[in-house]
């Protein structure tokens, strides 16, 4: 690896700074995490992830089995087989590909297989390839943990942390990035040196629960009603550990890499905050710029979306007044009266806090959410806080 040090003192020691698109950051993360199996199938806007991985494996830069599968259903089934045999698995998909794999998502989660998969969010046909989180959010109940990355740096860093989390809990993880706004947009990314990553995330250790021809077992056979609930109970126990572990791994990551991540991020949230925008992904960055002119507006960025980090949210909002207005920003449509974010927020606050909350649908199917849109949202929240607002429908 080329370790050319340009400045005398780097912002992050043992890192190399590069300009790269989000998809390339995701592929780079798979490489430095030493994923050993990559089943692949193309779909816009994910394609450059699997193309880049093909390049990395083909050139020998990365030691992995890379297999061009016949569909996303097969991609996830192959990922499942590989993980069953103990490999560290990575792949990526988007929209229709994710919908198509739905059956397998459940199987992977309920087989309790660790893996990290990137989803570059886009919505359902009628054809649309642009940024929207309806695909991953509609897979909320498959049992996968879901993170949403705000920047390419965060995507890369979250993939590293997700392997730790996934392998510890034996629960698969999605790391979601925004189509085009992230996937195809170049940013500065600090790439940790391989030995630094190795110290944090050692090569995958076999636990003894993998299939092993020397110790034949049957996996996945018919489970009678007497036993089935026990599997779910064990799963539930571990799902309850995700939020704390996310925060703990985020802290460990900070010690090692110097960048801090938690389940949620609170920006300008204090006792004087009047309005809180609840965001995920890159809209957060836009909103961060806009609230510079609105000292009374804060942002609650949800990084861990599933399981929803209730405790971290309550903690982040502990000082805010009860009359603070919460604005859920939804770049998704669940075919329901409110979006996915609102549903989760209501559940998180139930029996804990009461806030007036409004739900804002915006950015659907990739429609840009520029600062002016955030301004509009803030204006509406202040002047005409209807329960549900659709932006730019007139």
């Amino acid at each position, binding site marked *: 690896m080329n370790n050319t040090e340009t400045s005398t003192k780097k912002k992050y020691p043992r890192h190399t700074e590069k300009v790269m698109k989000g998809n390339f950051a995701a592929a780079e993360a798979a490489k430095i995490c030493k994923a050993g199996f990559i089943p692949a199938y193309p779909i816009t806007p994910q394609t450059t992830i699997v193309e880049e991985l093909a390049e990395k494996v083909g050139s020998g830069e990365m030691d992995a089995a890379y297999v061009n599968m016949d569909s996303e259903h097969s*991609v996830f089934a*192959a*990922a*499942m*087989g590989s*993980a*069953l*045999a103990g490999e560290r698995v990575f792949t990526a998909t988007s929209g229709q590909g994710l919908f198509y794999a739905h059956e397998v998502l459940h199987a992977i989660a309920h087989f309790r297989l660790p893996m990290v998969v990137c989803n570059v969010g886009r919505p359902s046909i009628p054809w649309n390839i642009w940024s929207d989180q309806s695909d991953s959010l509609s897979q909320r109940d498959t049992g996968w943990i879901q993170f949403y990355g705000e920047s390419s740096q965060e995507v890369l860093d979250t993939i590293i942390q997700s392997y730790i989390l996934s392998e510890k809990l034996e629960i698969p993880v999605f790391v979601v990035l925004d189509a085009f706004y992230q996937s195809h947009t170049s940013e500065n990314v600090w790439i940790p040196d391989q030995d630094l990553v190795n110290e944090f995330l050692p090569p995958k250790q076999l636990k003894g629960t993998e299939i092993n021809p020397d110790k*034949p077992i049957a996996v996945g056979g*018919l489970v009678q009603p007497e036993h089935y609930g026990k599997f779910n109970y064990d799963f539930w126990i571990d799902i309850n550990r995700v939020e704390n572990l996310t925060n703990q791994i985020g802290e460990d990551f900070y010690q090692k890499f110097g960048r801090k991540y938690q389940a949620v991020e609170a920006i300008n949230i204090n006792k004087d905050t009047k309005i809180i925008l609840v965001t995920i992904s890159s809209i957060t960055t836009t909103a961060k710029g806009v609230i510079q002119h609105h000292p009374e507006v804060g942002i609650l960025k949800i990084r861990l979306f599933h399981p929803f980090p209730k405790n971290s949210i309550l903690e982040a909002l502990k000082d805010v007044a009860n009359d603070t207005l919460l604005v859920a920003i939804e770049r998704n449509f669940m075919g329901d009266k409110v979006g996915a974010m609102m549903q989760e927020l209501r559940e998180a606050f139930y029996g804990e806090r009461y806030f007036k909350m409004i739900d804002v649908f915006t950015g659907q199917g990739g429609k840009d959410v520029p600062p002016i849109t955030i301004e509009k949202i803030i204006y509406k929240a202040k002047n005409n806080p209807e329960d549900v607002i659709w932006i730019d429908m007139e």
Partner: protein
Amino acid sequence: MLPAMEFLIKDEKVFSGGLSCRGCGWSLLVRHLSSILGENTVYVVPASCFSIIAGPYPLNEIKGTIVHTIFAAAPATATGIRHTLDRQGRKDTNVVILAGDGGTFDIGFQALSGAASRGENLIYLVNNNGAYMNTGIQTSSATPYGAVTTTNPNSNFKKKFPKDLMGIIAAHNIPYAATASLAFMEDYRAKIKKAKEMEGFRLLMVDGPCPPGHKVEPANSIQVARLAVESNLYPLFEVEYQNYKVNYRPTKQLPATECMKLQGRFKHLFKEENKHLLEETQKVTDYNWRRLLALEKLSVEFVL
């Protein structure tokens, strides 16, 4: 002269107490298969009767590893397992798919074609019992012409001939594909051994007896399988890189009706008004056989 003993299982790899029906093909074919492949084998099982026969959690009826998987994706699951075992230095482990006709001709067809096209180092065994039996005898695209199923009941019996899976799989230009019958055990066992010694994608299709599904007396299950071969309803052949070789030529071809009349699923065809349908079945059977012989003649040596 002593009778041929080549079909005796000397090293049993299946425990007693399997959950199959009496006369089921699954149990017998797996006993022979596993006795030849040995314990260093991972069986990948999509939804089928064998999902049940193999035993509920945490049981395992075979001395070997079983991975139960989703219906449509056994070859894909097996692909992931194969590549990972290879990377673990276990190239010697057999990875074998055990699928039904529904899981092969229909829902798993794409994953099968994908794995065959990629040349995955897998053995694919399809137990073709001609319907979705595990869910109660529904029509698949392997269901024979004229058969009654629960989704083609009574006079609404299946009116299409099954698709030529062997032709399709041969077109993938794989090293080995063969049909086999449980009434021709030496042939079946020899084909397993041959497949085992080869590398790449290999497929065996076994004519699967299913007494409840075919409405056959369990005691007649092997007899019906034998008549299927003797009547050319189910010819025994192998294909290596698209080169066909017929393995058994009936000395005197029996009429298809000899095999069909023992199966309740074809009972209605024997009514006077359906006589022409039986004739059609015979015609198509003869056509298939002639075509097979022609394909055998066509043989072109495969050079790489």
